[in-house]
């Protein structure tokens, strides 16, 4: 029997994502990634499309700041 599901647009899912757990030993990892990737997008927004430099403390701290903001926003 066919199963009908309703998808949501990106805007809605960003706020309340339906996350797929692929590794049940790390079940909180998808939520972390959701926050982390939003932080990376925010960084590229403020740095003209550039991703944070590797092994760079300053960039890392900035991404972390965005991640905290995204996590708060998601609550």
């Amino acid at each position, binding site marked *: 029997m066919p199963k009908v599901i309703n998808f949501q647009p990106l*805007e809605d899912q960003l706020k309340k994502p339906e996350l797929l757990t692929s590794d049940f030993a790390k079940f909180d990892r998808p939520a972390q990634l959701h926050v982390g990737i939003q932080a990376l997008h925010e960084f590229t927004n403020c740095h003209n499309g550039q991703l944070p430099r590797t092994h760079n403390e300053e960039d890392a701290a900035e991404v972390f700041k965005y991640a905290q903001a995204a996590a708060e926003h998601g609550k």
Partner: protein
Amino acid sequence: MAELNSYTPVSVLPSQSLTEDLSQLSKYQVIVLTGMSLSDQLAISEYCHKNGIYLVIADTFGLFGYIFTDFGKGFAIADPTGENPVSGIVAGIDEEGLVSALDETRHGLEDGDYVTFTEVQGMEGLNECEPRKITTKGPYTFSIGDVPGL
């Protein structure tokens, strides 16, 4: 890039950006995005969702990545599990729609499953009937609801 796979037509969109004229996307049934800014993704997502265009967004960042899908409202999956339908032998169906499986065989069905029948004698209206939703009453019996006039 077109040479990578001769079965996939590759073309370049004439406009400067995808978002400056979203209506250029209307001719597609599915759109896959990668390497786009979040604001562009949101603009395209809104347009696609409103216009019934399937959307997939995927990106990788080193060892991490994500996939987002939006196939719109009312997306029907014809075969959710890929499993073959289970079949069994019916011993009897009473006038209240209670179906009993043959002797000690478990029917193996769950609430909400759908069944149809073939080669039923005495209640031939059920043969090849439209799938009926069942509720299990026990391991050997389930109900197909009312069976008026059958």
